[in-house]
């Protein structure tokens, strides 16, 4: 479904991603783990057209999207839940969700939008309760749910999540990952970028490890979980966190 080949991205003269290649197949949950500053967010922003690659190709459903503007990429079915949620703070929850459905409205699928809305409310009952509350007044976890809901409203065939667990309480993180897993079960394709490597690998089919802008390891999620080096470098902290 998504094929990234030899991607190079730079901010000015500072090169961030080097010859990066990865792919996501239909119906997979793929996770990219890596430390702060490894280039995870840059990668997702480049795939969605918020950043321009210097070279390399990004193909989504067999179509080159590397030079398309963000809105066209989104309308082709590739959605991103951005880092730090980025909800429209001054608007009510419902409006946030409806804005997420922009591409659906444009296709004239009014009916589906309302069906999707009900589905999101089913997925995140708390959003239904807070339907008319301003998004900025929600708690962090609720905002994350809203951001995911908003991305789902576009009816994407691939949903990418950028650090959905960041800054959230462990209990809520659990909820969020449960939701992601459920999305996978329903046949959705997910690309999940996480620092919280253990939780991410537990729900993923495959994983990539990103270090300093390069993919250093890839493989089935269970293999990665069992990999010693990964355990040492990325999972140690998690163990402590989960024992708490």
């Amino acid at each position, binding site marked *: 479904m998504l094929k990234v080949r030899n991607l190079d991205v730079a901010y000015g003269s500072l090169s961030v991603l080097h010859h990066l290649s990865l792919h996501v197949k239909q119906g997979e949950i793929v996770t990219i783990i890596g430390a702060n500053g490894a280039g995870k967010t840059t990668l997702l922003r480049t795939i969605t057209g918020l950043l321009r690659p210097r070279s390399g190709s990004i193909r989504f459903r067999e179509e080159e999207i590397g*030079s398309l*503007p963000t809105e066209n990429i989104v309308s082709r079915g590739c959605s991103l839940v951005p880092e730090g949620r980025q909800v429209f703070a001054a608007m009510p929850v419902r409006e946030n969700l409806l804005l997420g459905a922009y591409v659906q409205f444009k296709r004239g699928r009014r009916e589906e939008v309302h069906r999707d809305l009900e589905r999101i409310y089913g997925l995140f009952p708390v959003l239904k309760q807070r339907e008319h509350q301003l998004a900025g007044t929600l708690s962090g976890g609720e905002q994350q749910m809203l951001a995911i809901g908003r991305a789902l409203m576009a009816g994407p065939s691939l949903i990418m999540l950028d650090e959905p667990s960041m800054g959230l309480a462990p209990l809520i993180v659990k909820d969020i990952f449960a939701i992601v897993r459920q999305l996978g079960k329903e046949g959705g394709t997910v690309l999940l970028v996480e620092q919280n490597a253990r939780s991410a690998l537990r729900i993923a089919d495959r994983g990539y490890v990103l270090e300093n802008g390069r993919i250093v390891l890839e493989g089935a999620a269970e293999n990665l979980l069992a990999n010693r080096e990964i355990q040492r470098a990325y999972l140690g902290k998690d163990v402590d966190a989960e024992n708490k």
Partner: protein
Amino acid sequence: MFQRFRHITALAAAIAAVQLLTAATGKEFFLTQLTMAGYYTLVIIGLCLLMGYAGQISLGHAGFFAIGGYTSAVLTTVDLSAWKAAPAISLLAKSGILTGRADLYGGQILTVHPWAAFLCALCITIVVAFLIGVPVLKLKGHYLAMATLGFGTIIYSVVLATSRFGAADGISSVPAFPLLPGLAVTGGSSQRVANYYFAWLLVTVGMLLLINLIHSRVGRALRSIHGAEDAAGAMGVDAARYKLNTFILSAVYAAVAGVFLTHYNGGIGPSEASIMKSVRYVAIVAVGGMGSLWGTLIMSAVLNFLSLRGYFGTFDDAVFGSILIAVMLFSPEGVLKLDIRSLVGRWIRTDRKAGA
């Protein structure tokens, strides 16, 4: 380390070369406009420090130019001979602060000596810049732009409303400013070459000062303020104080230019205090490159010279606007950073993107 002195030397050489060239081609009258352009350049490099290095915009810098110019103009033209008998005045006259001279029509008048007026102008500028700077520099972004614009508006309307400042007519018959025996800042053609060198000497000294400042500890502090104020604060840089000092310094540059240009022109008018003038200063800094003192200096010299010579006739503003847009579109880092290849490439890419 020595690179900056190489640049200063190059500037000095260029200044001399221009003079020799004009002398060789018999076009010495160009020096008149070059001198005036030099004074405006002094304002603009000061503003460049404030905008490019401390990251603070000022849409009211013409106000400081006017404070300098008007203070000097008023003090050196108001005739105090009627109060000659008053003890305070006679004391000042004896101490050399006041000076007698003949006016244009042969009458004898008693006015403040230009040097005293100059010091006075500096003091007023520093005080005003301090009083304005303290509250204004707490603001950011558009609010800062608005507040400095407001300051400029106040100065402009005060100048325009006060008959002591000549209201709309401004002040004329400002005397020469004696520098050394036989050398004075004045518009007379006999002193043209000397005045050209004096104006550009001020610019050179001003540059030297700024360059040293930028490369000093203060300069690093300024850059960190520009980068991120909160971070600078965390690093122990007293951002507010540095900003204020920079603001005052750039105000002083403007005021010094105002004083000398007023003596050179023999007068000053309210147009020197107008908002459009401030906007022009900001625009030239932007065209020259916000973080580039040299680019700013060159653009200021060229644009002011061309404008003062009236090369563009009634299209002066239109040409200026076009240059402004062109530079901002194609070389936002200033003219010195223009990179044609990447530019063309970018345009083609954008076109393709739009077409897709």
